[in-house]
């Protein structure tokens, strides 16, 4: 499989009054066409900033750097804002966590769907409208023609997220990044949206990067998983392998937090990971998870850990691993 996206050494740094925040620290990602990669981690682990960095949508103060950033055979390492804007909404698309606020309240759904197409493909509005209508129907919105004239406040959250998906699909992107697309939605709607995303991915042959903190979602949709902690990938691998043999104490902790009906005795407590993520500010040494890790040793505070292979494409950033 030829790689659609190849990123190595991706870093995002943000200056703060307390010092430099190393929000993303040397992240490597590779994704093939039609493949689904799940980025997993707690709030503030850098997964959303990783996605924004890939899109070129970082906040103004943030600085992005990478030793390699190739998309569909094109080197984007030094691509300017103009080139990134040409790709965004065209070859690269993104949907966000908050469908309620991600649509502009002042413009009709139709107008907001059409403008991306008009920007990248040009031509007449009629063609854009036809495409918008087709996609609204495709994402399962009934009465699509009538919806085009409606405004965001007239639609429910689930409908708005469907509109966002249709909007991202307008120019048939090669890569779609979905940042917690179902977090703000009802559980029943969540399942529908995920199912739809997978279906559309197959239909369009898109690469999909799905960002989530919900391992239940990961198990259902991912081909591969990358677990992030404090701006780094601490473990990654094929979903089956990672779920069957989680190697990093953090990954194991996350898996222990999922309630599994039948496996958990009534009244038994769910697993928790004690402590909170310490913000990666200033000079960082050793493993950032060590303060919350039951298996931490002295060397964890001083040694620099690299991602190393555990067989296949399963990789781990921890002193453990061989023991398992």
């Amino acid at each position, binding site marked *: 499989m030829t790689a659609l996206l190849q990123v190595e050494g991706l870093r995002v740094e943000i200056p703060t009054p307390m010092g430099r925040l190393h929000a993303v620290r040397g992240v490597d990602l590779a994704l093939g066409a039609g493949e689904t990669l799940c980025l997993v981690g707690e709030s503030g682990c850098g997964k959303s900033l990783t996605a924004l960095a890939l*899109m070129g*949508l970082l906040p103004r103060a943030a600085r992005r750097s990478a030793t390699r950033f190739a998309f569909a055979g094109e080197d984007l390492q030094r691509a300017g804002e103009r080139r*990134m*804007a*040409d*790709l*965004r*909404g*065209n070859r690269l*698309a*993104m949907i*966000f966590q*908050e469908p309620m*606020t*991600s*649509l*502009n*309240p*002042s*413009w*009709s759904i139709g107008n907001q769907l059409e*403008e*991306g197409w008009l*920007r*990248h493909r040009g031509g007449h509005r009629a063609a854009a409208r036809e495409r918008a209508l087709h996609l609204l129907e495709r994402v399962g919105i009934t009465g699509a023609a009538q919806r085009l004239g409606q*405004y965001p*406040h007239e639609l429910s959250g689930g409908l708005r997220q469907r509109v*966002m998906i249709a*909007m*991202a699909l307008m120019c048939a992107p090669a890569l779609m990044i979905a940042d917690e697309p179902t977090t703000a939605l009802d559980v029943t709607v969540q399942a529908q949206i995920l199912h739809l995303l997978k279906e559309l991915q197959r239909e369009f042959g898109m690469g999909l990067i799905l960002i989530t903190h919900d391992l239940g979602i990961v198990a259902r949709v991912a081909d591969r998983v990358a677990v992030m902690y404090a701006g780094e990938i601490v473990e990654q691998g094929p979903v089956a392998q990672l779920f069957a043999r989680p190697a990093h104490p953090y990954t194991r902790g996350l898996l222990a937090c999922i309630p599994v009906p039948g496996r958990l005795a009534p009244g038994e407590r769910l697993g928790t990971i004690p402590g909170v993520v310490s913000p990666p500010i200033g000079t960082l040494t050793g493993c950032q998870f060590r303060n919350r890790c039951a298996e931490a040793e002295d060397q964890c505070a001083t040694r620099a850990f690299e991602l190393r292979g555990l067989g296949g494409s399963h990789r781990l950033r921890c002193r453990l691993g061989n023991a398992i």
Partner: protein
Amino acid sequence: MLQYALKRAVLALLVALTVSLICFLLVNLSTDVATAMAGEGATAETIDAIRHQYGLDRPLAVQYFEWLGHAARGDFGDSLYFHTPVAALVAERMPTTMVLGAAALGFALLLSIPLGVIAALKPNSWIDRLALTIAVVGQAMPTFWFALLLMYLFGVTLHLLPISGGDTWQHFILPSVALGYYATPAIMRLTRSGMLEVLESDYIRTARAKGLRNTSVLFKHALRNAVAPVVALAAVQLGFLLGGSVVIETVFALNGLGYLAWEAIGHNDFPVVQAVVLLISLVYIVLTLLADLANAWLDPRIRIA
């Protein structure tokens, strides 16, 4: 939208009626009209005669409805000082004030909206600080004093512009700038804060995620949402400007409504004062109504209310 417009219009009509009542009572309760009309040193018989002649001895309610009935037909009685129909006086002076108000608002918007947008795009830059300075100075400086400074600089020292009268369009430049500058700070600060807030919003990120050009993100997606409160404010400001024109018209000797009001107050010319106050209030109400409708057009969410 039509239903919303009708609701607003009915509301505006009710406000107008209330204002007319206040306008009538202000003059009739603040002084004894007959005594003031008779002038100083008038005998009690003379005052009584005047009171009877003008029907001022009747109940206030009767007087109000009679006045309102006439006013609705454009009849505000005769001026006590000019001895001509008030309506004709007002009609003659109205255009000057309207031109001044519109030009002042135009100047204020042209200065404040671009400055506010640029200040929001580059917060804490030199242009943001310049905009802040302009706002602080504009808020702190009395209008008449700024008017005098302008007259001194552009009229007396540089001989570029006329400083008195209203014969040509050049005569309106300095008064419009002096009056408009007064409205600039509030509009600019509101534009800036609105833009700052909107630029941080999720839908701006969505617009950028579509790869839209900066101009499109800025004007189509950001400004339209940021400017809605500015529209309402601008309408209110224009009302203030019409009120403020009393000072400016007097300073620049422009023969408008403001100047007429000033003359009328000086001469106890009650019918004229009443007419001018009522008229400016009505203009204010109409402006507010128009602002509400403009906002409903800008923001579809308002149309449901």
